[in-house]
């Protein structure tokens, strides 16, 4: 079960013609797919399109009613490969994953798909993880469209435009026999708005029906000589067809007057940012009506030369608003202008920064700079000669405000794994440690600072290969359950077995693809009506030939975790060593257990609720425990006592009693400040009586001692 349930929202997917559909971008895309008669959908989760997968999973009932096949694919490559159904069959298919990393993984299948060409519309919905909030390297998915010759849509970031783009994407794909990639940025995925719904459409040919009537077209097989013919087909037929379709159907949009000295060309996704800058400059009104000619590229690949040249006609200069680098579009537009012998000046990365997101300030500054250079008379007087007193004297807070990167949640089962690893490093020295993709990557940040590289999903152990020939110390790699099933089993574990790697791999098994929102994976422990779960990782690892495997079923046992790691690092066995560390993701566990516990207490059943605490008088404020934890619920408290120099540790109410604090205090021999308090709700009569007796005797002993000595209470001096 995913972290966020869309069970309520997906009911909206049944809306029909004329109804107003209000939602966030991702749900709108799902609705648009159904309205377009899609025959099958799939994908792999990852921000910012994780929720699209969650919506699809929650909508499975509606999908199957319509005869639509849904797959939660094992990886982006698997998702892209699924589009093969559209190669021979006139069936529309859509898959989704994140860009650019998901597109990297999928690129093998995408390249083959693009070479074959498609019969049914094939749509790849990519959540471009770029700019603020991104968790990956900053690159553009754009390059993939260029190298494989498929088309790239980048619609204006509002719901009606995105919904239209889905439909246009399928049409364009079919009109040009080419797969189409629809790119939505992080904020577009989550932007809210409304559009007018249409009826859902049953696919004209369902995959079930297609299975009964197999088709194949030899010309679409990627083998010589067809592969040569396919390349030709791409440039001679599909490309012109696409351009013609884009132009005829008006996929790109024009705003403002058709004449003007200067104009702005932009990726569709940049539209709202550009308009806001124009609004602030007094060049556009609230609805975006403007006196500046705008050419909005809802299709950023391929570009339509004629359309662009027409736009440039009579203009002294045009500005290209293209986020990220390299500036593929600007280069192409420059080449189009040059070849046409046009005189129009081209601006873009001369006023805009080459790298980084086009924030509100960047847009304003860069567009203003363009006007100042190319058409200063368009700017309001005050903008031309500003006399604003620049920066107010707000104190500089850059040294005050701490950075706040994401970290392990309260009670996370991965925390004790890395606490143990830090303890092992304390004993055996620093080791070569490779990370992977997933929540466990947060261990590279303070307080653990473990792991230095991430080479890709499931590639952690593989990225240590150079070190796996053996030496004085052994390399360690961390791999999550998500990465393991995505690619790790073959590329990392199989690779290590085959190469007889003298390596240590820790597989963090938290029962879910946790970082992307708690989707089930093969080794999930939950029952899933439509997916096959409960396939133990340890069995898979043994299955591919690993002989040294240790299964730890309770990661919070820091001592055991530490000893197992030590054993792996020091054993005589020189083949691959794999430790599977399993405990459930606390975020998901709490979501499931909390209501159950509350219900049990209400119903009068016996329930133990654990929470940790710190004895103020015993804690000396050295914060050693925090350096082995970083738990959000383990924080500091400044005491109102001049005798105490440093703030002491304190545990707040959000503690879930996972046990890490006590285990770490014990395993690291930290201090006796921690205690666990288990509140036993509804204890049975006998238990209550016994505890009362013990309480009385304890109370009597305490009184006895208190009476004989000075006892202080209250504060003050």
């Amino acid at each position: 079960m995913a972290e966020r349930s869309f069970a309520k929202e997906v009911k909206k997917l049944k809306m029909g013609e004329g109804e107003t559909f209000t939602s966030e971008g991702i749900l709108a895309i799902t609705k648009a797919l159904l309205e377009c008669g899609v025959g099958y959908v799939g994908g792999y989760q990852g921000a910012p399109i994780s929720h699209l997968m969650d919506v699809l999973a929650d909508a499975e009932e509606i999908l199957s009613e319509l005869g639509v096949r849904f797959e939660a694919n094992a990886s982006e490559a698997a998702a892209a490969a699924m589009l093969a159904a559209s190669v021979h069959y006139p069936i529309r298919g859509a898959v989704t994953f994140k860009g650019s990393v998901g597109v990297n993984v999928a690129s093998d299948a995408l390249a083959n798909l693009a070479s074959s060409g498609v019969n049914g519309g094939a749509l790849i919905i990519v959540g471009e993880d770029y700019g603020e909030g991104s968790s990956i390297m900053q690159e553009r998915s754009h390059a993939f469209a260029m190298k494989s010759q498929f088309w790239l849509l980048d619609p204006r970031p509002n719901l009606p435009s995105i919904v239209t783009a889905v439909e246009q994407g399928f049409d364009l794909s079919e009109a040009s026999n080419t797969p189409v990639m629809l790119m939505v940025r992080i904020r577009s995925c989550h932007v809210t708005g409304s559009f007018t719904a249409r009826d859902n459409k049953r696919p004209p040919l369902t995959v079930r029906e297609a299975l009964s009537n197999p088709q194949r077209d030899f010309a679409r097989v990627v083998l010589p000589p067809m592969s040569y013919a396919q390349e030709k087909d791409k440039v001679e037929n599909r490309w012109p067809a696409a351009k013609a379709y884009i132009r005829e159907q008006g996929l790109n949009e024009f705003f403002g007057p058709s004449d003007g000295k200067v104009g702005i060309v932009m990726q569709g996704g940049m539209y709202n940012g550009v308009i806001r800058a124009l609004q602030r400059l007094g060049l556009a009104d609230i609805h975006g009506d403007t006196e500046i000619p705008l050419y909005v590229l809802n299709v950023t690949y391929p570009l339509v030369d004629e359309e662009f040249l027409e736009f440039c006609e009579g203009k002294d200069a045009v500005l290209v608003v293209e986020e990220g680098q390299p500036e593929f579009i600007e280069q192409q537009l420059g080449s189009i202008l040059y070849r046409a012998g046009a005189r129009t000046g081209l601006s873009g990365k001369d006023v805009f920064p080459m790298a980084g997101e086009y924030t509100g300030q960047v847009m304003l500054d860069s567009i203003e700079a363009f006007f100042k250079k190319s058409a200063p008379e368009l700017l309001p007087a005050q903008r031309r000669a500003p006399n604003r007193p620049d920066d107010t004297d707000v104190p500089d807070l850059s040294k005050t405000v701490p950075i706040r990167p994401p970290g392990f949640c309260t009670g996370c089962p991965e925390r004790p794994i890395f606490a143990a690893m830090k303890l092992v490093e304390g004993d055996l020295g620093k080791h070569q440690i490779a990370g992977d993709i997933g929540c466990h990557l947060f261990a590279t940040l303070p307080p653990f600072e473990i792991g230095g590289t991430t080479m890709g999903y499931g590639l952690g152990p593989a990225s240590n290969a150079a070190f796996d020939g053996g030496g004085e110390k052994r390399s360690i790699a961390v791999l999550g359950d998500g990465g393991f099933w995505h690619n790790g089993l073959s590329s990392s574990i199989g690779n290590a077995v085959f190469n007889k790697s003298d390596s240590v791999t820790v597989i963090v098994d938290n029962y879910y693809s946790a970082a992307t929102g708690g989707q089930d994976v093969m080794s999930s422990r939950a029952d899933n009506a439509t997916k096959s779960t409960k396939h133990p990782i340890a069995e898979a690892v043994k299955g591919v030939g690993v002989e040294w495997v240790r299964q730890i079923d309770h990661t919070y046992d820091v001592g055991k975790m530490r000893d197992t790691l030590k054993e792996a690092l020091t054993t005589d066995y020189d083949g691959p060593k794999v430790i599977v560390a399993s405990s459930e993701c606390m975020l998901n566990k709490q979501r499931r257990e909390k209501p159950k516990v509350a219900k049990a207490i209400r119903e009068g059943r016996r329930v133990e609720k654990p929470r940790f605490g710190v004895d103020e008088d015993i804690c000396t404020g050295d914060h050693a425990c925090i350096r082995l934890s970083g738990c959000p619920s383990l924080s500091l408290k400044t005491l109102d006592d001049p005798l105490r120099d440093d703030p002491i540790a304190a545990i707040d109410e959000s503690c879930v009693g996972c046990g890490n604090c006590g285990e770490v205090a014990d395993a690291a021999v930290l201090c006796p400040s921690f205690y666990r308090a288990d509140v036993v709700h509804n204890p049975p009569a006998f238990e209550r009586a016994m505890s009362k007796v013990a309480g009385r005797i304890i109370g009597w002993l305490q009184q006895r001692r208190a009476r004989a000595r000075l006892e202080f209470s209250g504060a003050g001096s």
Partner: protein
Amino acid sequence: MNVVHSDFTPKSRDARVDKIIKLAIMAVGGQGGGVLTNWIEEVARNNGYAAQATSVAGVAQRTGATIYYIEMAPDTGRQPVFSLMPAAGDVDILLAAEMMEAGRAIQRGFVTPDRTTLIASSHRALAVSEKMVPGDGIANSEEVKAAAEIAAQRFIVFDMNKMAVDAGSVISASLFGALAGSATLPFTREQFEAAIRAGGRGVDASLRAFAAAFEATQAGAEQPTQAPEPAHKPLAITGPDALIDRWNALTARIDAYPAPVRDMARRGLRVVVDFQDIDYGEDYLGRLDAILAVDRADKEYALTEQAAKYVAKAMAYDDVIRVADLKTRASRFERIHDEMHTPDEARLMLTEFMHPRAEEIVGMFPARIGRRIEADARWMRRIDRLFNKGRRVRTDRLTGFVPLYVLGGLKGWRRRTLRHAYEVEHLERWLATAMDYLKTDYDLAVEVLRTRRLIKGYSDTHARGLSKFDRVIGAIALLAGRDDAAEWAARLREAALKDEEGKMLDGAIETVRSFVPEKAEMA
């Protein structure tokens, strides 16, 4: 070609653009920013406004800094073009769900004096980088407040987290209440509350938190309400009359001390008497008397004041007896009972996490025997094997409570133990060092006393603290005689508190060595 060429006549900034209300929420993942965003959208859309919200979720939801953004404008039937992200200098309302996130908003230019109402909760959710410092790494909220006073057009700040928790809710509800109370949005209280009701989950608790924050904001709780801790209960002392009399005699001695020393000496006395007994308190005052005798009025008795603090801490060291005593007190049981909100009919189980090592065991032996055993590696290994393991002690049960209770009662034995001998030796050597410097450099002597702050923690952490202490004292020896010796001593101490291993300290000592001429290093 679909040219949209409407009746555009701007020439100057469209006044309607300025009517767009731009609202950003800066929060820490897990604070309910998404729920808050939904409420705000709901209230806007249901009351004649067009609204658009965006967020940057991704991995930021795992305790990282996160941002939500909403724009709204009167609904005229035609959709305005809203921005998807806040721009510096262009935010009307900024909600910060934590004090440093308010600081981050100011840093990013989202709070400007011409337009921004900043609504911030004054509480702190500490970042890992603040918590892991061995010393005090907590960022200064006052600096953010001072900046906010300048940067914001209007600044509404109070502890909205506490308000929410007290109401059994989460901070999103009290922030929503403060937003409503600020009257920055053109909607009524009832309209805001309707949005919470429409949400349908935890409605009553949310409404309570909403109401509290709404009223606090309307009442003008704009000034940071000091943490409303109940006024300190006055110090109460109970015990046998004879002991009380002796206690009073000791405090009477302190009353005769110079004013700057009295408060610290009283606190110190309480700590050492609580640690051991009234005789020990007499010893403490004896040590203070000796220091006071050579102290200087023109320095406001800084030396004795610092001695009152650090001698008390040194005398009340953290040994097994102290821990056992503290863990078995009635007052502790009561405190935990309250903190855990234990219902009357429930039972409270208490587990302590102890991990004694051979050092702690041998430390309990009589000094002479202890020293001999400690010198014998074989014996130490044997004892280690017997005792060194994690022990979970259930102090709510007699089987766990009684052994700790007995240990905690061994105060009569304490003064004979090896640990006590070590502590006294260390204390005296340290005081002697300070007194030695006193002859030539008063300020340096004070700094030597303050260096004692480095010794804290248990086992390895304690050993590391001791090592840092020794290194600082060693470096002070190099500095003695220089005019800036005290300054450097303070700097070394601060450096030692920056990181666990003492890398900053080593760097600082390197610097000291670089400018101090070679001289025979004193131990």
